[in-house]
């Protein structure tokens, strides 16, 4: 028998002594643990106490009817699988039994093999049902953990600012406090900025998820978007000693929300500068290729360790390694990029060599493609 089912417990409820014996022998022979009862009341008592995985019940019994037994088993534990035994004359009742929650029925007379087959299928379905319930529970737990985590992320900068202010007040007007005050106030401003960015990014994500952002469909030229984003980062790049270059086909037509497309390119270029090195370069390439458009943002920066790549687009994930400087960021930029790309029916990919640099590649449907490319994003 299926080893996974060996030892599973079955309760058989049938008023016919010969039938109880036959069922017990057929099932015990292949490793099931079987107990049998001659009437519904005793059978239910055993089900309540032993919680078997499966119950085989005769529909036509004196005393409690099979249908009553089924509904009471469901009340005890709805995960128990119920197989009903029925005479040919009571096929109509078998249908009622299925409606009442029985898994399947077996018309008399049946062979031991038929009984074993239906019982095994019953256990298999039960296993799948329980696995899917487990998945549902895990999803709910993950959702709650995420809420806790997000609230922690939002509170962290606020806590730092509060603690500085409270300790400053505690230190009073001493020379040591005066020395700290200037530095700490600067840190407070940095942390409030951090909180502001965090709230902005979080709001952007929520709006994307809620369909409040990104639904607008305007025809855009991505070359224009890239050119204007690069202009806004010229000063920051110059300060960091990073050279910005663009290699763009013109035009690069896409359908999308202008704000979102701007945010997408902006986040990728900002990352490419932030995670770069002095003397490094950021190259943005854009081209049309077989029904889609491809934009690549390549940097010569710190790169991403291979084990961090799968989590790179997760909310709040930050690559942290000993030795690399801590770079300010919300941990929400790439999740936002991924949502925007998906919303436009495209994808975002990354290739990276640690210590050498990364290339983020966005592939979107070409707005002038001969054959429309089906959207792969959310369709609700």
């Amino acid at each position, binding site marked *: 028998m299926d080893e996974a089912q060996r030892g599973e417990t079955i309760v058989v409820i049938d008023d016919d002594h010969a039938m109880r014996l036959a069922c017990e022998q057929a099932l015990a022979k292949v490793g099931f643990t079987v107990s049998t009862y001659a009437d519904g009341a005793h059978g239910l008592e055993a089900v309540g106490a032993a919680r078997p995985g499966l119950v085989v019940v005769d529909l036509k019994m004196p005393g409690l009817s099979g249908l009553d037994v089924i509904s009471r088993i469901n009340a005890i534990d709805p995960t128990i699988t119920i197989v009903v035994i029925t005479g040919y004359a009571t096929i109509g009742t078998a249908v009622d039994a299925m409606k009442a929650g029985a898994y399947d029925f077996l018309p008399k007379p049946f062979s031991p093999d038929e009984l074993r087959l239906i019982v095994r299928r019953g256990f298999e379905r039960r296993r799948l049902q329980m696995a899917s319930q487990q998945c549902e529970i895990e999803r709910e737990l993950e959702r709650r953990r995420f809420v806790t985590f997000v609230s922690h992320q939002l509170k962290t900068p606020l806590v730092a600012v509060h603690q*500085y202010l409270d300790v400053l007040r505690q230190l009073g007007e001493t020379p040591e406090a005066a020395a700290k005050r200037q530095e700490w106030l600067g840190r407070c401003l940095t942390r409030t900025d951090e909180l502001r960015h965090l709230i902005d990014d979080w709001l952007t994500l929520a709006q994307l998820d809620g369909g409040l952002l990104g639904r607008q469909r305007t025809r855009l030229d991505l070359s224009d978007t890239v050119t204007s984003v690069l202009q806004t980062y010229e000063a920051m790049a110059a300060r960091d000693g990073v050279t910005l270059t663009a290699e763009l086909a013109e035009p690069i037509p896409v359908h999308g929300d202008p704000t979102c497309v701007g945010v997408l390119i902006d986040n990728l270029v900002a990352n490419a500068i932030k995670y770069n090195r002095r003397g490094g370069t950021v190259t943005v390439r854009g081209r049309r290729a077989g029904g889609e458009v491809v934009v690549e943002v390549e940097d010569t920066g710190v790169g991403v360790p291979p084990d961090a790549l799968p989590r790179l687009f997760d909310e709040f994930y930050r690559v942290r390694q000993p030795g690399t400087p801590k770079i300010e960021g919300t941990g929400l930029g790439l999740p936002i990029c991924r949502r925007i790309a998906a919303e436009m029916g495209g994808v975002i990919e990354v290739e990276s060599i640690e210590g050498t640099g990364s290339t983020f590649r966005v592939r979107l449907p070409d707005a002038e493609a001969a054959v429309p490319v089906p959207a792969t994003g959310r369709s609700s």
Partner: protein
Amino acid sequence: MKTGSRILVIDDDQDFVQALVALLEREGHTVLTAHNGRDGVLSAQRERPDLILLDVMMDERTEGFFVAQELRRIPGLTDVPIFVVSSVYTEQPSLKVEPDRAWLGHDAFYRKPIDPNALLADIRAAIAARPGAAVRGATP
């Protein structure tokens, strides 16, 4: 009164640490710091602090939970006061979680931000209550 205790602060938020260090140093304590659980355990093993302030959500999200257990297994630190400090726990009823003392093995729990006066008072009390305090000359 200067107690002159040695306090280890394990927390990944450098600003929060800096504020606490100033507060504790003014009180006469010597403060050691660590920015993640691993360094915190190493520092505790090496320095044998008199008291530990431990954050919960660090790099590996819930790192502090495991750090508390590890600290408790260090010989000589099995009864060092551990004050768990975190903003992950909230008063909000729908999200309320209380740290499990039996499991975490901590001696006190603070929600961030901390009230400076309450923290200083509790530290004084916890250190005075330790058997080692009398040996060092404090009034029992």
